[in-house]
């Protein structure tokens, strides 16, 4: 059982706050993604967990033991770095064995563990090579094996696939997820790619400006973003300013139920929750199709309504053509006001 609890963790660099006080609990065997744009504090938070940054205040508990001020070498964590950080003068075998030697394992045990680690990442025959003789993906696999053989309580991954091409990234991501599930190792994974987070995480922690914006499963985060930032950051989202009065949000002929106080708000609708050309749609507005991009299985349509561009995902079978004026209707939607969600159409 390995759990990680961050309690009121804060990090300041002089007068600049990198991490505002935040708390987070990660359960045993869970894979949690820290997701956010550059400068959101996700890597700093990971480095605090790993011991590479000293926190300004707060506690870092691993299995209930506070390691907040322990150096990296004294923590039961292991980190996979973005740049793989392999030691160029050592062979693959020596890279993986280095940590085991420091832990005092005998030669036979080291050999057994290194071979197990190499086979776990599919590099059984590469022990004698130097990092310079490996491809980018193979190097990152070695870096992962180097961490796994130490059997850390918490595995930390700092954008491990950022330097790899898309195809390799997808493959390695799946492999890592499989290994993580097999070993049941608690993992914190930093990424700025929402696709990556959505595909590997049990839970996603969306961060911005050193704050946690939302914590939830990939499905929850996508379906019900808690803040305008999350709504705009995760997936495509139309963020349209609307006026609410008498229980309805209105814009250019669109009239949507909204049981919130009167005043301005931001309407958030996913492209797939918009329909162009639905004849019996209630509360529709007439939108002009200005652009269509063929994505193979669907069209991404840009339509103009009330002077605002709306992104619509239309099926291949939809009778939509550029220049057409068609009724635009809204399915699921949310309303945001003062940086928080105030209304969900599917809840009321």
């Amino acid at each position, binding site marked *: 059982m390995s759990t990680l609890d961050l309690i009121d963790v804060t990090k300041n660099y002089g007068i600049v706050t990198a991490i505002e006080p935040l708390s987070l609990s990660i359960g045993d065997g869970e894979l949690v993604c820290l997701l956010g744009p550059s400068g959101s504090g996700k890597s700093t938070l990971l480095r605090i967990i790993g011991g590479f940054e000293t926190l300004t205040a707060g506690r870092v508990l691993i299995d209930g033991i506070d390691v907040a001020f322990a150096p990296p070498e004294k923590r039961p964590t*292991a980190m996979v770095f973005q*740049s793989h*950080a392999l*030691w160029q003068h050592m062979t693959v075998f020596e890279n993986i064995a280095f*940590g085991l030697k420091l832990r005092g394992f005998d030669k036979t045990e080291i050999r057994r563990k290194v071979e197990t680690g190499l086979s776990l990442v599919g590099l059984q025959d590469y022990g004698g090579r130097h990092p310079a003789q490996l491809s980018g993906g193979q190097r990152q696999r070695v870096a992962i094996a180097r961490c796994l053989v130490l059997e850390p309580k918490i595995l930390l991954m700092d954008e491990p696939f950022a330097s790899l091409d898309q195809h390799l990234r997808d493959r390695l991501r799946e492999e890592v997820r499989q290994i993580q599930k097999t070993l049941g190792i608690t993992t914190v994974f930093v990424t700025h790619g929402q696709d990556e987070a959505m595909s590997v995480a049990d839970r996603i922690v969306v961060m911005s400006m050193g704050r946690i914006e939302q914590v939830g499963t990939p499905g929850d985060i996508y379906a019900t973003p808690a803040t305008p930032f999350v709504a705009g950051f995760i997936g495509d989202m139309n963020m349209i300013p609307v006026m609410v009065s008498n229980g309805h949000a209105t814009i250019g002929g669109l009239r949507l139920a909204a049981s919130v106080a009167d005043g301005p708000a931001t309407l958030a609708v996913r492209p797939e929750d918009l329909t162009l050309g639905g004849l019996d749609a209630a509360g529709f507005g007439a939108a002009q199709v200005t652009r269509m991009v063929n994505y193979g299985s669907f069209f991404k349509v840009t339509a103009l309504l009330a002077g605002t561009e709306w992104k619509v995902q239309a099926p291949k079978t939809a009778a939509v053509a550029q220049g057409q004026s068609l009724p635009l209707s809204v399915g699921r939607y949310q309303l945001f006001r003062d940086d928080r969600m105030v209304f969900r159409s599917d809840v009321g």
Partner: protein
Amino acid sequence: MDAGNNRTGRIDFLAYGFIAIPVMAIVVFLFYPAALAMFGTLFHKRPDGGLAFDASSYIFFFTDPYSLANLMRTLWTTFVALVLIVAVNLPIALYMRFTRGWLASLIQGLALFPMFVPGIIICYALIRYLGPNGWLQSLLNAVGFTHYASPITTPWGPVIGLIWDGMPMTLLILISGLGTISDASIEAARDVGAGRLRILRSIILPQITHSILIVSALNFLGFFGQVLMPFMLGPTNPEMMGPFMLRTFVSVRDPLQAATQATITFLICSLAGLAYVRSLANRKEER
């Protein structure tokens, strides 16, 4: 010949043109007279005008206790200065590589300062500071310590001068070598449980062996043939090869023996040069 080849041909011709002048200058003004001098140490003119092989100057050198003592003193000074210059500069380079801030900048400035000071000024400064009745002795006398023995007149005098003189280049090369080690690779070592000494021994030093080898080779060449520092500092008997050659040539007026000493110096320095070239070649191969 197509246009591409013409173009390539022109570029090659231009490149040879560019290097021709310096290569000619080196050959005419350096290699030729050096080869002539070396040849002259082994082949002497007979009374009948012909040339005869004669290694008597070498036999003299290797049987003359004074010459051998000078060679040994030169080797001792060079190796001691070499070990100390790496030992002094490595911690400074490590500090400057892994620390940021005003103190690191200040140390860098101080360490590179000797680069801008002529050697003769350094010699006088060391004599005035460390020499007999110098500032240090006066300062120690003022606090009641009267047993100061100046190192300037001992074999350590040239060692101190050589370290001071070779410090900037050594530091720059070591810092450059350390610059190739990423922060992440150090952090990865800490992450798997390595302490500072272990990181130094297992991660940092193996990755800067090229730099240490280059520093050693270049300093060896510089130290072994030094004239100024051993001439100004240290004892006169035995003396280093630099002042020994100078004195043999200018004061003793024995050009043959001076050329023999120079050839022996050249051959010993060639070994260091060879190590330097091999290190560069290995590095290129690794890349």
